[in-house]
């Protein structure tokens, strides 16, 4: 009987083994099918962040995108304002000291060409502090055709990346891309492909030497060597000639390495070490109107049955002009005053908040306002922290006076605990 026949006859009966094998195959097939049902994740990953991180750290507002469609090589400009909230959650996050302005994109589909904070060009990270407001501008050059969801972002050291409102932008497959770099010597080079020819050449030279060395030792095979080595005759399978050739190759490798260093020093321009160029942009001045408004949140209640969120605000207007509550903003969620939206020409004002009593607050007046908005919509975007250690909401309240001046300053930062009503 052959070995194969012997092993076949000694196999266990089909029963259990076959059943288990079929079950395993079915499980694998189900798993593969489930993976196939997964939808692609193209955007809005920031909704996975906790509510306090999105609302109480950095808030973006007045964000505008210059365009939604452009060609390769054309520029997209994103402007707006970002605020490092005074009510930074320092029970769990270190105080904000270092930040970095950028954009969120699925890989470098755009190359950022300019970063500005408060009219200061920021080449790298910036020093920041709580309560600071920074107008920002990012200019990005289109590079890879496709449609991408782009957000301005501000990363804060020890806190993570906070994301502003995003927009889909389409890059058409037309145009040319180049990013010139001006060297200190006056020479201008194109960043695309810069330096790679040199890298490939020197890697190839090193590889040829290494390949030659390996070929020398492997040309007569390797595995046969195991036998004399196992018998203790390893020294006998290396000849003096082989040693001499190997030493020569090693010396050559050393000379090539040293020579390459000398070549680099002679052929490249003035060099500096990698630079750390961090600046401290000046925070925007506090809004003059905002200094004259006193806003206090009395309480906030979330009705779990109806999903409504109700705030009670006491507003004192110490300015010489009547003011009107324009909108609320929590992270990227905005709710406009229903009365303001009614008078607006915009076709879709988005989420609305009902302000009672309506109307302007006169100079010198103190008024208690009740604000009613859709808490369920906030919860859907993960902005209602009902299941967190701090059940509180932080956002901005925007007022305007009759001259159109808006107040979005520290005084009007809204932070309050929320009482769920079950």
């Amino acid at each position, binding site marked *: 009987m052959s070995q194969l026949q012997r092993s076949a006859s000694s196999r266990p009966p089909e029963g259990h083994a076959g059943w288990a094998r079929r079950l395993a195959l079915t499980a694998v097939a189900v798993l593969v099918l489930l993976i196939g049902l997964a939808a692609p994740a193209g955007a809005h990953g920031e909704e996975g962040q906790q509510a306090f991180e999105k609302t109480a750290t950095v808030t973006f507002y007045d964000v505008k995108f210059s365009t939604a469609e452009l060609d390769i090589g054309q520029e997209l400009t994103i402007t707006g304002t970002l605020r490092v909230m005074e009510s930074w959650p320092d029970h769990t996050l270190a105080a904000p000291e*270092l*930040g*970095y302005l*950028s954009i969120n*994109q699925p890989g*470098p*589909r755009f190359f950022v060409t*300019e970063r500005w904070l408060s009219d200061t*060009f920021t*080449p*790298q990270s910036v020093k920041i502090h709580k309560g600071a407001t920074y107008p920002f501008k990012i200019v990005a050059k289109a590079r890879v055709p496709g449609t991408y969801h782009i957000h301005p972002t501000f*990363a804060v050291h020890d806190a993570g*990346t906070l994301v502003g409102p995003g927009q889909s932008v389409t890059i058409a497959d037309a145009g040319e891309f180049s*990013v010139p770099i001006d*060297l*200190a010597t006056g020479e201008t080079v194109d960043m*695309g*492909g*810069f*330096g*790679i020819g*040199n*890298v490939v050449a*020197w*890697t190839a030279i*090193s590889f040829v*030497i*290494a390949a030659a060395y390996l070929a020398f*030792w492997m040309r007569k*095979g*390797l*595995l*046969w060597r*195991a036998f*004399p080595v*196992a*018998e203790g005759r390893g*020294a006998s399978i*290396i*000849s003096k000639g082989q*040693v001499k050739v*190997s030493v020569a*190759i*090693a010396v050559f*490798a050393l000379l*090539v*390495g*040293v020579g*390459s*260093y000398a070549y*680099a020093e002679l052929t*490249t*321009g*003035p*060099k*500096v*070490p*990698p*630079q750390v*160029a961090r600046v401290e942009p000046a925070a925007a001045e506090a809004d003059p109107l905002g200094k004259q408004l006193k806003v206090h949140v009395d309480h906030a209640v979330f009705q779990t049955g109806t999903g409504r969120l109700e705030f009670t605000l006491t507003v004192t207007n110490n300015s010489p002009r009547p003011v009107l509550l324009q909108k609320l903003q929590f992270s990227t969620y905005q709710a406009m005053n229903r009365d303001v939206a009614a008078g607006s020409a915009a076709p879709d004002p988005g989420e609305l908040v009902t302000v009672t009593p309506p109307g302007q607050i006169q100079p010198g007046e103190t008024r208690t306002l009740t604000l009613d908005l859709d808490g369920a919509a906030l919860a859907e975007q993960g902005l209602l922290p009902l299941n967190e250690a701090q059940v509180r909401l932080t956002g901005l309240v925007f007022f305007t006076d009759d001259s159109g001046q808006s107040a979005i300053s520290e005084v009007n930062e809204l932070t309050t605990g929320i009482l769920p009503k079950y």
Partner: protein
Amino acid sequence: MTTTVAKPPTPSDPAPLGKGQRILGWRWEVLFALAFVPLVIGAFHLNQMLFVGDWSFWADWKDRQWWPLLTPALGMIIPAAVQYIAWSRLRVPIGATVCAVALMIGQWLSRYFTFDWWANIPINYTWPETFLLAAIILDVILLVSRSYLITAVLGGLIWGFVFWYFNFVMLAPYLQAVDFHGTLLTVADTMGFHITRTQTPEYLRIIEEGHLRALVGDITIVVAFFAGMLSVATYGFGFLIGKYLAVWPIGKFFKLQTN
């Protein structure tokens, strides 16, 4: 089943048996290479990615302190292990060079296909460093000295020391000074400004941080010596991995029997 081994020729020109008398055919050599080389690519590439990933990935992380210190020192572990395997079992001084070639293949495949083709991060920003020349020197030191200790000390020192200088020719163009909107940066820093890496803000860069500045003006040579010393230690670590986690357990179960 026994295997008859014909006594090989005298050491003046040691060679395997003639075609008709070959113990193991060339197909076994190919099978061995097909199995072993991907294993080394995986092990060494994973080692580098986990220990020194960012310094290897990005041109603007290749500074004068951490890149030339950590990359060769932690990149010594796998070559030392494979060198032990190759020398102790086959008496062939190619362990480190095989590792360096394998790493080169793995890194370039990764940078080109994963970084450039898939994620559109240009390869002139993510090019990898190389150990090719240093690996040849390390192997030949073992060949000449026939001592793991001498290879660890002398070879380790050289391996760590030459890393910056042998890779400088590739890095030098990226260290050229740039006047970027009134700020002095390098070409690599400028590339880092332009190319956004999601969830990798600039302040995460670990470059030029530390206190190795007290002794001499040129930090590079101090770091090169320190990298050499660290490589001596990590050679020992790799040697132990090769001996006790590779050769010894495999030797217990796969013994070559001869008459």
